[in-house]
C-alpha cells in the first residue's frame, strides 16, 4: 500500500491509523447508468497527516473525483474511505455534512460561493452549520478574511467580485473552521498571473498550511513545486 507524503518534522509521533489523514482501501469508482465508465478500479493508499501532496494529471483523469471522494461529496462504487480516523463511506448524508463542516476545508474547481450574500456572510456560513456562537464567529471570519487579504471587501456582494477575488473568498471560507484537511481542486486554473502569485504566496505561507494536510489537484508547476510529494496522474478516462 502506498503511503503518500511524509510526516512533518515537528509533528507528534503517531502510531497505527492515527498517522493518516486519509486512507483509501480497495476503492472503485464508476460512472454511467451501468457503471460502464470506470475511473478507479482498485485504489489503495494512505495519506499521512500534516503533509502537502499534489496530484497532477490531464483533464478528465479523475482528479476532481478523488477530491470529491475525500470530501464525501461523491461516494465510491466500492471499497472504503477513512478520513481522520472515521470511515466516511459508512456515514449518512447528514453525518457526512457535519463531519465535513468540522474536518474539511474545500476549495472546489467550480465556484460554490453564494452570489446573493456578501463576502463576510459567505465566509461565515460554514460556522453557522457548526453552531459557533456569534462573537467567536465574527472573530474567526475577521481572521480568515485578513489571512487571505480580502478584509477590505467584506461587505461586497460576492456576485460583484472578479473570478480571482472569489477564489480568495473561497480560500477564506475553506480556512474559517480551521480544518485539519484542506482540499484544493485546480486552485490557480481560473486565476490571472497576478492573482496566482498572491494565491501561491498564501499556500507558501506557513500560517495557513502548517500542521494541515493539504491535497491539491493541479496542472500548475508552481503549485507542485510547493508540495512535498507529487503524484503522477493517470491517462484521461475514455
Amino acid at each position, binding site marked *: 500500500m502506498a503511503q503518500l507524503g511524509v510526516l512533518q518534522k515537528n509533528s507528534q509521533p503517531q502510531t497505527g491509523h492515527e498517522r493518516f489523514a486519509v486512507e483509501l482501501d480497495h476503492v472503485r469508482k464508476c460512472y454511467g447508468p451501468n457503471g460502464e465508465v470506470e475511473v478507479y478500479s482498485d485504489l489503495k493508499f494512505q495519506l499521512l497527516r500534516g503533509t502537502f501532496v499534489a496530484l497532477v494529471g490531464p483533464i478528465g483523469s479523475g482528479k476532481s473525483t478523488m477530491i470529491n471522494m475525500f470530501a464525501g461529496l461523491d461516494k465510491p462504487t466500492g471499497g472504503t474511505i477513512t478520513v481522520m480516523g472515521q470511515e466516511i463511506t459508512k456515514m449518512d448524508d*447528514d453525518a457526512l455534512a457535519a463531519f465535513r463542516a468540522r474536518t474539511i476545508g474545500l476549495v472546489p474547481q467550480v465556484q*460554490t460561493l453564494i452570489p*446573493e450574500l456578501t463576502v463576510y456572510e459567505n465566509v461565515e*456560513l460554514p460556522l453557522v*452549520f457548526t453552531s459557533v456562537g*456569534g462573537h467567536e464567529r465574527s472573530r474567526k471570519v475577521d481572521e480568515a478574511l485578513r489571512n487571505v487579504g480580502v478584509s477590505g471587501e467584506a461587505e461586497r456582494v460576492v456576485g460583484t467580485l472578479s473570478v480571482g477575488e472569489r477564489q480568495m473568498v473561497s480560500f477564506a471560507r475553506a480556512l474559517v473552521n480551521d480544518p485539519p484537511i484542506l482540499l484544493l481542486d485546480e486552485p490557480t486554473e481560473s486565476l490571472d498571473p497576478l492573482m496566482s502569485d498572491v494565491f501561491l504566496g498564501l499556500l507558501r505561507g506557513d500560517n495557513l498550511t502548517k500542521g494541515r494536510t493539504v491535497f491539491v489537484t493541479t496542472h500548475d508547476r508552481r503549485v507542485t513545486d510547493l508540495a512535498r510529494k507529487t503524484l503522477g496522474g493517470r491517462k484521461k478516462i475514455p
Partner: protein
Amino acid sequence: MSRMLGVHAGDMVARSLRISTATHAGVAAVSAAVALNAMVAMQFLQTAGQAVILAAEFVLLCVGLSAISMDLYSRSQQTLSNLRSIGASRGKITQAVVASMVVYGGLGALLGTAAGAGIGAGLGNSGTAFAGLLVQSIAVIVASAGAVVAGVYAGGWASWRS
C-alpha cells in the same frame, strides 16, 4: 450540533435559497385567503362543522405550502449542493426555510382571520359572543400556523427524498 439556527443565520440561509419578498408575499396571501374563508364559515356553523372547516383549512394550506416549498427546493438545487459541501445538514436548511415562511404565513393568517371575522359580522352573524369569536379566531390562526410549518417540512422532506 442540533442547536437551532439563530435569526441572522436563518436569514442568511433563506437568502441563499433566494426566498424573496415575492415568496413571502405569496405565502402570506395564500395563508390569508384560506384563513379568511375558514373564519367566515366558522361563524355560521356548529362545533362539528367548525371542526371540518378547520381540518380542511389545515389540509389545504399544508398542500399549498408544501408545493411552494418543493418548488423552492427544486429551483435551488445548485445552492443546496453548495451549502451541503460546506457542511449544511438537511435539518438546518429546512429549519431556515420554515422559520422564514412561518412568520409571513402567520401574519397572513392573522390578517385573513381579522378580515373573516369582520365579513362574518357584516353577513349577519351577530349571534356569536365575543369570547366565542376569540376562540374561533385563535383556532383558525393556530391551524394556519401549524399547516405552514407542516407544509414546509413536508415539502422539504419530499424534496430531500427525491
